[in-house]
């Protein structure tokens, strides 16, 4: 590496923005500004709704959609990722902080800020230690399960708002459903009809006009409906609860609180919560990094991305933000809108702030049931029925872990869902490791497998199970070996550690044996015992190899 290159990568690591700043020309700026305006408008309803989910004043949601974007634009790796509030994290914040403060109070906000800082610090640590790659091993099944669980939680929590009645927060799902069932007669049907209008129009647009941003359309339709009802019947009569006037401060300074009186009693929960939130954020980042590589062609350094997220959360805790993370949906729509650089994020933050300042009287009239309708749509979008159906149709491991994690998330709370998910992923990973593995053996180790008369051969040790799921790996490995020795020598497979084999596995071996035969060499197989003989015989391996070429270790 030349000194200039080193300097370049160093700058890229510590100041990633030095790489895209020079890209800004008139054309890029123009397309980015437009993408930014769109992104700024799109985030508004979610920012408000997700803050409410987290038990925070809507303003906090707006700050969270404004400030972290600047930081991650400057320090993140991807040029298209837009960060902001996230559904799972909102649910998580509410669960964690709910143990220490009553919802929405200044204490609640204080604990949330501390939580933001802790999550950010943990993420930063992950990034610096370059642990981002770990998240590539996070089981996809578990991810779907957690997200599905979050979708269910969101919908259940919002049923009360949807019908214009109050329910106790933080009750188990079945209690909420039970109490709502009996209180349906008390529902405010004006509110409920607005909610239904919102959900209905959202679903309609999503189905028939997939190009339109259905959430925005749903909000507008719902709010127009509310406005019409007010006009015709008077807001004092229909009594629909509304959002209220939002007021943004230019610089809402705040600080995480680590003072003994406030922090000690909550330390355990907050640190565990911080870890889980960091984890959820990283999970998103990993998905985004993978997807972005496909969509935009930019290679995303996941560790750098994680550092960007960590720094933006740490900064966020000083600017009244709750934990945020890169948002997959926003990033994807950013690319669709033609955004090219992180300038999009900066523009979207400014647009959002202006929108709130100037449209405040209009936004203030947003009925809470419309907001609940929006969250219904958001929650429903998290429950990906198709994915789930494929998962459930496959018998075995995936189905069980899906059901287990999803159930735990909904009933036990998101934090346990995530922890269980981590455990399930580790187990799945370990099992994957126990699948076939190749080791090429040399010298002494190799010689012990060579029968009389063979003095030069390629010896590989094969362990794990050789079944339909693993033939692919085995084939590849055999092909690699063939490229190496040109099939110029016999191949000895030391298979005492093979613990399982099926027809597909045998077929793979047979194929290789045929190829070796064509090249004039044989394949010699070592097995542990006679357990597999039946199978091999059935697939004609005995005749193919010749009985003399199959040896047993015992």
């Amino acid at each position: 590496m030349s000194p200039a290159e080193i300097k370049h990568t160093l700058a890229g690591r510590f100041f990633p923005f030095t790489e895209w700043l020079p890209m800004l020309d008139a054309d890029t700026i123009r397309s980015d500004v437009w993408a930014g305006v769109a992104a700024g408008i799109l985030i508004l309803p979610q920012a408000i709704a997700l803050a409410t989910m987290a038990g925070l004043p809507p303003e906090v949601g707006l700050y969270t959609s404004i400030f972290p974007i600047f930081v991650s634009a400057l320090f993140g790796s991807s040029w298209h990722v837009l960060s902001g509030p996230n559904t799972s994290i909102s649910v998580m914040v509410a669960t964690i902080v709910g143990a220490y403060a009553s919802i929405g109070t200044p204490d609640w906000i204080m604990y949330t800020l501390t939580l933001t800082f802790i999550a950010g610090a943990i993420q930063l640590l992950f990034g610096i230690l370059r642990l981002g790659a770990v998240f590539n091993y996070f089981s996809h099944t578990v991810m779907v399960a957690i997200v599905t669980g979050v979708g269910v939680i969101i919908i259940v929590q919002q049923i009360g708002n949807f019908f214009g009645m109050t329910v106790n927060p933080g009750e188990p799902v079945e209690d909420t459903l039970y109490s709502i069932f009996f209180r349906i007669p008390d529902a405010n049907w004006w509110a409920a009809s607005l909610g239904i209008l919102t959900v209905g129009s959202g679903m309609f647009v999503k189905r028939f006009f997939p190009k339109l941003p259905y959430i925005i359309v749903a909000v507008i339709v719902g709010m127009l409906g509310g406005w019409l009802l007010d006009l015709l019947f008077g807001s004092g009569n229909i009594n629909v609860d509304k959002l209220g006037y939002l007021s943004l401060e230019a610089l809402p300074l705040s600080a995480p609180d680590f003072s003994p009186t406030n922090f000690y009693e909550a330390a355990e929960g907050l640190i565990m919560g911080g870890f889980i939130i960091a984890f959820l954020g990283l999970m998103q980042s990993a998905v985004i990094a993978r997807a972005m590589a496909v969509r935009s062609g930019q290679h995303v350094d996941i560790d750098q991305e994680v550092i960007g997220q960590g720094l933006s959360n740490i900064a966020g805790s000083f600017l009244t933000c709750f934990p945020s993370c890169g948002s997959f949906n926003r990033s994807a729509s950013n690319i669709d809108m033609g955004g090219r650089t992180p300038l999009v994020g900066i523009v979207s933050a400014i647009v959002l702030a202006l929108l709130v300042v100037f449209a405040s009287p209009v936004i203030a009239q947003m009925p809470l049931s419309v907001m609940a309708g929006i969250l219904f749509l958001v929650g429903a979008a998290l429950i990906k029925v198709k994915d789930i159906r494929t998962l459930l149709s496959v018998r075995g491991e995936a189905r069980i872990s899906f059901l287990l994690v999803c159930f735990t998330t909904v009933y036990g709370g998101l934090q346990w869902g995530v922890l269980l998910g981590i455990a399930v992923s580790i187990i799945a990973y370990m099992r994957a490791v126990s699948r076939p593995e190749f080791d090429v053996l040399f010298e002494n180790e190799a010689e012990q497998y060579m029968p009389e008369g063979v003095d030069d051969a390629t010896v590989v040790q094969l362990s794990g199970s050789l079944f339909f799921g693993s033939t692919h790996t085995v084939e590849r490995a055999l092909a690699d070996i063939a490229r190496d020795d040109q099939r110029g020598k016999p191949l000895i497979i030391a298979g005492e550690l093979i613990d399982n084999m099926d027809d597909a596995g045998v077929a793979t071996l047979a194929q290789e044996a045929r190829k070796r035969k064509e090249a004039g060499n044989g394949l010699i197989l070592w097995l542990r015992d006679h357990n597999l003989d039946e199978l091999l015989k059935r697939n004609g391996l005995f005749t193919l190899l010749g009985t003399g070429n199959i040896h047993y270790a015992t």
Partner: protein
Amino acid sequence: MKQAFLPLLSLSILVTLAAPLHAEPTDPLEVRPTLVEPQVSLPTNLVTVPVVNPGEYFVPPLVDDIPDDKTGDMIRWGRNIFVNTQKYAPRYAGNGLNCVSCHLSEGRQPYAAPLWSAYPIYPIQRNKTKTVVTFPQRIQDCFKYSLDGIAPTVDAPEMDALVTYAKWLSTAAPVGVVLPGRGFASIKKTHDPSPIEGEIIYKSRCALCHGENGEGQKNRDGVGYMFPPLWGTDSFNRAAGLNKVKTAAQFIKANMPLGAGYTLNDDESLDVAAYMWIHFRPDDPRKSFFMNRFAPKPGGAN
């Protein structure tokens, strides 16, 4: 001499505080004017609780007695919202008023609908809506009408804070008993209130603070009102209690001009209330847009 003075003083205060509450309503005209100073900023120590005749009215606890725990935080938050709604609950305030604009002295002033006289008797049957309302629901009404705003939901944290504050103010108040000082002063209507008379009184007694056009006076920094507006877009709306001539007169009689309550007699109060009433204020949210344009203004009768 000096040493003997302090115990004596505290003893006399104790005696007055411990004096039994008289449940029978007192004739407000006989009591002396209140001693409250015009209250333009948040007083931190309310030792001079506006007791018209010491012992006549329930005495809520002192601000210094707010406990130093989480409940105390809640009480302080509720008090802040009550005294400075514009700053602490801007999300719900639709005009320039604070709760304290009408519920004087932080909600302690007798005959200015004090909180301590309200909290212990809720839930209650209300004439306005013909239904039983709970305390939070009553507060929602003040947000919707008196503050011309958007009511916080009954489970909103701000609502919790206000209720906690009211509960604390009524510490040791008897439950379910209508205490003297509840609501506003009683008034007898002897003639049809005349806005013309009212204008004369208004110009001489009220305009000084509330402005020639009832527009009030902003604080020096331009944020919030030192003297709240009595009508116009930044005042309470047509559905508020004070938009009723009679209720407004009751309030004015006991409390206005600030610091000189009971200096207007019943007729004068009614006249000035009528003068307030004839001006423009925001729409009644209980009526449709069209009814607000074409139907007669509520509140003029009774």
